[in-house]
């Protein structure tokens, strides 16, 4: 495996769906390759950062409207 092939397997590796053989070859390559090791760490950081987009706060006005709707609907 060369670096150009390894980078295209990064997601399958992170997802844990490489075959046992592919996984072994992937890890053997990574062990000796600074660039691919950095790339893998960056893929993981990118994913962690992407998850922080979930933190967008619910606007107070929308929260009030939704709670009103919930209250009214339950009362019917």
């Amino acid at each position, binding site marked *: 495996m060369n670096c150009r092939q390894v980078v295209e397997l990064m997601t399958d590796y992170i997802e844990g769906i490489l075959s046992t053989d592919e996984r072994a070859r992937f890890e053997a390559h990574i062990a000796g390759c600074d660039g691919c090791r950095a790339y893998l760490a960056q893929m993981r950081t990118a994913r962690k950062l992407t998850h922080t987009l979930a933190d967008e706060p619910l606007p107070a006005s929308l929260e009030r409207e939704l*709670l009103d709707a919930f*209250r009214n609907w339950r009362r019917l």
Partner: protein
Amino acid sequence: MGEGIEDSELAALRAGDEAAFRSLIRRYHGPMFRLAMTYVGDRGVAEDVVQESWLTCVRGLDRFEGRSSLKTWIFGIVINTARSRRRKESRILPFASFWRRDDSDQRRPTVDRSRFGSDGMWQSGPLSWDSIPESKVLGDETVQHVRAAIEALPPKQREVIVLRDVAGFEAGEVSSLLGISAANERVRLHRARAAVRQALEEYLR
């Protein structure tokens, strides 16, 4: 998430428990808003979609049969609401054409070939971010770049990365929510994550 938690949450919602509803809408607002943005591309319209989706959920709570998880059901409603909103908007805006021309299901090299030598090994490999302070790597400005990178993605990649990495769904749940194969889900996810990483590399150099 354990199914037991969802069951008791559903029971609380059906009983009209406002605290349970508040906790639900706070928890899912971010991912729902990001997902809505994927389809409509305008903050105001996306907020409308989120609101309309919640109203649909509230009205449907009693009819929800629990064939999927509560979360999957809610996000399915967001997708339907946002898609039908997009169809209406697309008569006015040229947004829909992005979807038709989207080649996200094709496997494509995700790293510029010029970065590799003829042997396929890195010529200009990525540099580790270990020496950059964590406060910068995980800082607000970096998050802005992530958001911009995701908004710039072709829509089919965007919906997958938002469902997987923002909303936290498993691969199988995303395939069934979007009605796509596991293979297509993976190709789209891989291209999307690689693009976000690339944008970060350019910013954090």
